[in-house]
């Protein structure tokens, strides 16, 4: 058995009286796509926030690449290789698509305290950034400010940024949301390839994509894991069908 890249043990997080994360344990193994599904408000995004470091769990531990990262902030975890995208795109709106990716390339090179050389003439920044845009199919939109990109293009741009970081695990929060069927299909194909580069924890409502991609699926309801298993297991799990897929068992 390969060591998991990411391992969550007994995480809990409450907002007042609400248990948004209730004793959640799960892991992400090399080369896999682990889908995290559940109804609205189940606590999926809250879990992603805790892994990325933007929320602190009340209890439990998060191990990444063999290290306990619980005490680290967002930038430190990002530098270790946790690449995440947001359910609601989070970009630098005034910068072009290219500059958004260049920021990630710059961060990866660890050199933000350089004061004089213009970034737009620095090919160690522009070329890798352009290559990432090409990979996600955004090269033609490189010069467009992020604020002027379409919804789907912004999702692609976020993925390009996570790629540029050389992430060792991807945390993708609903990357298909708001995409047309054509876009989702292309992205499904893309993520299928991406898992070879680094494993993916995939939060997604698009069941076709989930069933096509996932090696394992974890189902979250009211902050609790109600089932974990292969696509087949989950399709046939009576609890899941009742609680989530909305069918009478």
């Amino acid at each position, binding site marked *: 058995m390969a060591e998991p890249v990411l391992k969550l043990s007994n995480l809990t997080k409450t907002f007042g009286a609400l248990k948004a994360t209730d004793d959640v344990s799960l892991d992400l193994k090399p080369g896999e796509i682990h889908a995290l599904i559940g109804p609205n408000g189940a606590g999926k995004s809250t879990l992603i926030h805790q892994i990325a470091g933007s929320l602190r769990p009340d209890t439990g531990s998060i191990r990444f690449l063999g290290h306990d990262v619980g005490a680290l902030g967002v930038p*430190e975890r990002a530098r270790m290789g946790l690449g995440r995208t947001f359910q609601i795109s989070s*970009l630098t709106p005034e*910068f072009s698509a290219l500059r958004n990716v260049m920021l990630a390339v710059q961060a990866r090179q660890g050199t*933000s305290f350089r004061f004089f050389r*213009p*970034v737009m003439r620095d090919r160690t920044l522009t070329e890798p950034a352009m290559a990432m845009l090409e990979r996600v199919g955004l090269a033609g939109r490189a010069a467009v400010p992020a604020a002027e990109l379409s919804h789907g293009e912004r999702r692609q741009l976020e993925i390009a940024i996570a790629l540029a970081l050389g992430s060792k695990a991807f945390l993708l929060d609903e990357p298909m949301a708001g995409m047309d069927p054509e876009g989702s299909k292309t992205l499904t194909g893309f993520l299928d390839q991406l898992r070879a580069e680094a494993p993916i924890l995939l939060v997604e409502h698009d069941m076709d994509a989930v069933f096509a991609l996932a090696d394992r699926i974890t189902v979250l309801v009211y902050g609790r894991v109600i089932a974990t298993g292969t696509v087949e297991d989950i399709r046939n799990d009576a609890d899941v069908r009742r609680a989530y897929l909305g069918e009478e068992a």
Partner: protein
Amino acid sequence: MTRETLISLAIVLALLAIPLWATAAGETFYITLATRMAILALAAVGLNIALGLGGLVSFGHAAFFGIGGYAAGILASHAFNMEPLPFGLPGTNAMPVIWIVAIVASGLVALAIGAISLRTAGVYFIMITLAFAQMIFYFAISWPAYGGEDGLSIFVRNQFPGVNTLNGLSFFFVCFTLLIASLGLFSLLRASRFGAALQAARQNEQRLATVGIAPYRIRLAAFVISAMVTGLAGALFADLNRFVSPSMLSWHMSGELIVLIILGGVGRLAGPVAGAMLYVAFEYFLGGITERWQLFLGLLLLAVVLFARGGVVGLLAGKARHG
């Protein structure tokens, strides 16, 4: 050349034209006015690094302006009276030395103020920078050694090797050259990796952190650099007036710097220059007509905020482009 570059050039040349015309016409008072514009512009270019690029609304930059001013005043008074400073260091009337002291002192104070203030954001940041500046203001008032409330005179303008600084036009050129250098620094910073991170921190702090860059350190560095430029301007301002007093440290001064950046264009290269020219012109011409010139300034400011978000530069050059 982009449109913004052309506009910037035109604005800077317009400033240069004032003292040249004044000299030709024998209207030496306008040289002083233009020098005041150049110095306030320099101070605002400094603030524009924090405010324009980093989105850090510092309401305490008068602290650095005043520290620069007092550096000039204190060093000059010790040189004049031939009294050594603490540790037996001599005073000086050499501008280059004074400038370095002004820059270093403002930078160190900014490091302390920034380290604390930058743990807050938004309105809290505005209030805490104001509070620190007010502390320094009251300290200056209650410190009798250098004039306290009455301020400190510089009896002979400090000197720059090879330049007769007593000549108004020459002193203008000294200030103008430093202004141009600061504009060069601003555009280098804006285009650099540091500038990219700083502008990203303003646009979306979460995004910056998610790529692995901690916004705090970037902002702190920007705050310090910003204060150093404003501190240098303070030293020149003291030399222009041959006088430094706590008023340089007051919150009016901080507000004035913010106002003239908003007038000229926040984050724009020549914004502070256009703003300073407009502000000083207003102060002089309207101030000559009515005591209530600031009321009209307020109306102008309101018009800018409502109808011309990018200030004068935005009006002339359109929206900023980031590449």
